[in-house]
């Protein structure tokens, strides 16, 4: 067979090729180890010497050309496999839904990060507490109204649902040596009926620092950092004297109203200030009851409602929304 007709046959075969799988067959039919073109090389020896070089060159050319053609076809098949269509990019996507962490846990995390960066450790405690840790060790007298079955949830056996996160303070003081700085987040329970600003289950973050010579100035500096990070650098705060059994002196912390900037509005009841937490210097009795020497050590403690922080920051006007778990509500808070 002559070179030209082999070449033409190859072109015909390529033209008639139906699927990608046939390509290697045709390729080996012509330029494989026993292919028609390859076979021609073997015939070279039988040719006169002067023609050999010339014919050899021609076979080579045809072989290279076919190689190229086969590669071209391979590429063509590969590209065809992409099956690219004309698409209108404005058409709807195949939907993928993202989820959400809960708004309160987002708030927890923001608050936690502020204190974590300062060197506070986070410690959680049990929600089912005993009266000693929830009341007695916190200097609540036996007759304190909070110890009433009116206000706290009790179980059959004198244990109760903790009414605040402060018992963790006692648990830490009983087991760790000062100095330490701790924040303690978690759920608490009081016998309140649910309304726009109350819930029988709520979340609190407690913070406390115990060392030597700790005073109101230290508390103030830590609160300043907290207020700036959580509510903004320009938000003012103040310490208003108050009373709690487990701190002395005790105070409530107000921030400048973030809704009216202090001019007075509904939210701040025209005072220009909004209460955000309670705080104080840990009462010496509390130290004594948990085995720390109040002569040597002092410390501060503070506690805040996480719902309140979230509601203020994110303009939520009803606490029931937070526990309603409506996906349209949860979806709004991206964390």
């Amino acid at each position, binding site marked *: 067979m002559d070179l030209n007709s082999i070449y033409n046959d190859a072109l015909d075969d390529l033209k008639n090729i139906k699927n990608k799988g046939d390509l290697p067959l045709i390729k080996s039919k012509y330029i494989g180890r026993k292919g028609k073109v390859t076979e021609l090389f073997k015939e070279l020896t039988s040719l006169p010497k002067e023609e050999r070089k010339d014919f050899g060159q021609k076979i080579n050319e045809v072989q290279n050309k076919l190689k190229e053609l086969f590669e071209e076809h391979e590429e063509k098949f590969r590209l065809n496999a992409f099956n690219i269509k004309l698409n209108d990019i404005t058409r709807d996507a195949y939907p993928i839904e993202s989820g959400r*962490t809960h708004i309160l846990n987002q708030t927890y995390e923001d608050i936690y990060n502020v204190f974590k960066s300062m060197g506070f*450790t986070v410690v959680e405690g049990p929600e089912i507490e005993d009266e000693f840790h929830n009341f007695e060790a916190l200097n609540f007298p036996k007759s304190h109204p909070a110890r009433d*079955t009116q206000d706290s949830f009790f179980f059959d056996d004198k244990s109760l*649902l903790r009414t605040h996160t402060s018992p963790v303070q006692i648990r830490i003081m009983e087991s760790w040596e000062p100095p*330490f700085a701790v924040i303690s987040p978690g759920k608490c329970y009081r016998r309140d009926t649910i309304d726009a600003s109350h819930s029988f*289950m709520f979340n609190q973050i407690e913070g406390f*620092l115990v*060392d030597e010579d700790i005073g109101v*100035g230290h508390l103030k500096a830590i609160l300043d950092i907290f207020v700036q990070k959580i509510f903004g650098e320009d938000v003012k705060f103040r310490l208003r*004297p108050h009373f709690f059994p487990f701190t002395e002196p005790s105070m409530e912390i107000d921030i400048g109203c973030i809704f009216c900037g202090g001019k007075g509005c509904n939210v701040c009841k025209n005072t220009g200030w909004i209460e955000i937490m309670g705080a104080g210097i840990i009462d010496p009795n509390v130290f004594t009851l948990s085995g720390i020497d109040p002569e040597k050590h002092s410390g501060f403690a503070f506690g805040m409602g996480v719902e309140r922080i979230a509601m203020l920051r994110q303009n939520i006007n009803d606490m029931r929304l937070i526990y309603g778990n409506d996906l349209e509500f949860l979806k709004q808070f991206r964390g």
Partner: protein
Amino acid sequence: MEYSLKWIQKYIDIDIPERELFEKLSMSGSEVEGYKELLTEIENVCIGKILKIEKHPNADKLQYCDVTDGKETFKVVCGAQNIHEKDIIPFAKIGAKLPGGVKIKKSKIRGVESQGMLCSQKELGFGEDHTGIFILDAQYKVGENFKKYFDDMIFEIEITPNRPDLLSHIGLVREIGALLGKGTRKPAVEEIRNTVDSPIKVKIEAKDACPRYSAIYISGITNGESTEEITYFIKTMGLNSKGLLVDISNFNLFDIGHPTHFFDADKIDGNITVRFAKKGEKCTTIDKENRVLSNKDLVIADDKKIIALAGVMGCMNSEVDKNTKNLFIESAIFAPSYIRETKKHYGIMSDAAYRFERGVDPEITPFSIKRVVYLLKQNTTFSGTSNILDSYPGRRDLPIITLKKENVEKILNIDLALDKITDILRSLGYKVEKLINNDIKVLVPSFRSYDTLREIDLIEEIGRIYGFNNVPEIRPYIRGKVRTNVFWDLKFKIRKYLSGRGFYETMTFSLIDETYIKNLGYKGKIKSLSNPLNIEQNIFSPWIFPRLLRVLKGNLKYKNKNIRLFEISHIYDGEEKEAISFLLYGNQELINWRNKEPNEMDIFNLKGELNAFFDLIGQNDLIYKNEELPFLVKGNSGGIYKGEEYLGFIGMVSPEFLPSKRIEKPVFIAELVLEPLLKKGIVKYTPISQYPAIERDISMIFKKDIQISEIKALIEKNGTVNLREINLMDVYEMNDKEDALMFRLIFQSQSKTLNDKAIEYLMGKIIGSLEEKLSGRLRK
């Protein structure tokens, strides 16, 4: 407690605006929670003067007056007969508003036009007198707004439990005096002269419960109507007049903070004993309730009967009334704990009990008597008074505290001069004596002897008056071990990851309905509340998933949504622990233009989510076992284990346990305890294999009761370390007893290229063991 600004001003001159006063009070620990005008309902009533009175032309009993507001003259019809020309009266003009929504309009009375109204006390909403027009003193200026003289600012303060001394106008005046640095006026008293002996003697049996009992006998008294002033002031406290004697007792309570009790002396048989009730004794309190007493109730008794629940409420049998002639006034101190017990037991709220349970100044009782006698003398007549009877078994020395200047500095971080410290304490009523070494000896006044007992209490006083806001900030250097709470961090890692996977985190109430939990088949321990708010929330939830089912129900309004939920929460099933629960509901993908009918999910969708989650937190060796649970569909549920340790379950919820009939697709749930999932320590690098991975498939037929986990375990055992993955690729049902299974195995060595011979050897071992141990046979 609510306070009247007018009342306060009787005892101290306030020359700053009200708002500023309230701010000062708030910033010293007495938070002003709100304030309001007393006469909010009154508008457009002015001080008027009657110029001329004529007879009404068409009615005998009516009069026709000319009244001026200082500028104009108005013609007014008036029915009252107590008016005279030149009288100063409250005049409601056309357009005025009176209490009860009354609006004054132009009207014709018997054919004559009346341009307003002359008002009685009752029409103005204070006082009971409606018989005549309220004739005013000449001091009131004609034309001025009536409210200028008669209105009051009522403000409410949250009195903290440590400050019972502030539960009166005098108490607050004392505090305001300290805050403003101003003197105060003392309430006037009557010195008592013994003009008649008391026929009634007092004996205190319960000395712990009644540290002091003072009393006085007053003879020949006339009860009657209260004066305008007393009526006015008790109105500011929200009380109506109940006759002079009761009104004065009430006035005194709000004035000086001491509850006295007025007995009709003629209704007392013999003498008075302060004692505990005998179990089963009965009495009828003045709220008309019949009460059967216990031996914990402190009572006032005469020789025959109980005449009062001490410090809480009097009894009807000894009440004063309009015929009372002789009076026996109790001015006592009762110990807080006993009062609280009785008050709580009977659910009685009274202003007296409120004060006694917080603590009343023990030194006040004789003063209280002198004050009450003064008020009686000002308002009525009586013929004689006895001595003040006074038993004081609970007399105690007042606390004396040594205050060190260095401790003020330590707690408040301010360097206050000794003089400044003593000034502050003195302004609050403490007696102060400087000692050597910057120490101060402080004598606590009796009205603060309930709450100021320690040095720290004095430091608080100094701090709140000096102002905590004036304390400089000092950033503390935070010392001590930096302990990382890996479990807390893990929970936040989980939250982030799952929200990225399309799960919504919920926060539901940890209290749940016991019946519901038992209906679901819960058999474990239950922690039930002894005082739940309602039966829907009466136990601490042992599972989270029932709460997720309810969240699902609440979100069904969002049609065509896939709902994926998770929650991390404490549970109680014998012990308190933290758990995580998952819920999956909907289709494999959301409906879209390419796929209008997406496949429903099955249990392996949730298993896949769990496995990816376990992988993320480094738990790759958890085991699933086919297990049944009462609320899960049989054959679609299982337990999850870490070695032998049970972690929780996964499964499809049985349709009968779904909380809504509108749930039309299967719901998959899983719930696991969280703590065993915590992997501690930092992951160390394992080198990546540089050698090729080789795939081999096995197709074998097994009996249906052989579990995939058994087959995989056997393959894994025989595949050696070089077997990296086993994936189930196909399940084909041969008949009702057998399935054909195809597994794809991936072999890869860490140290060399595995040749065909080595792979064939392993495959041979694997197939041999499957044939031998599990009666599998190769599929041709």
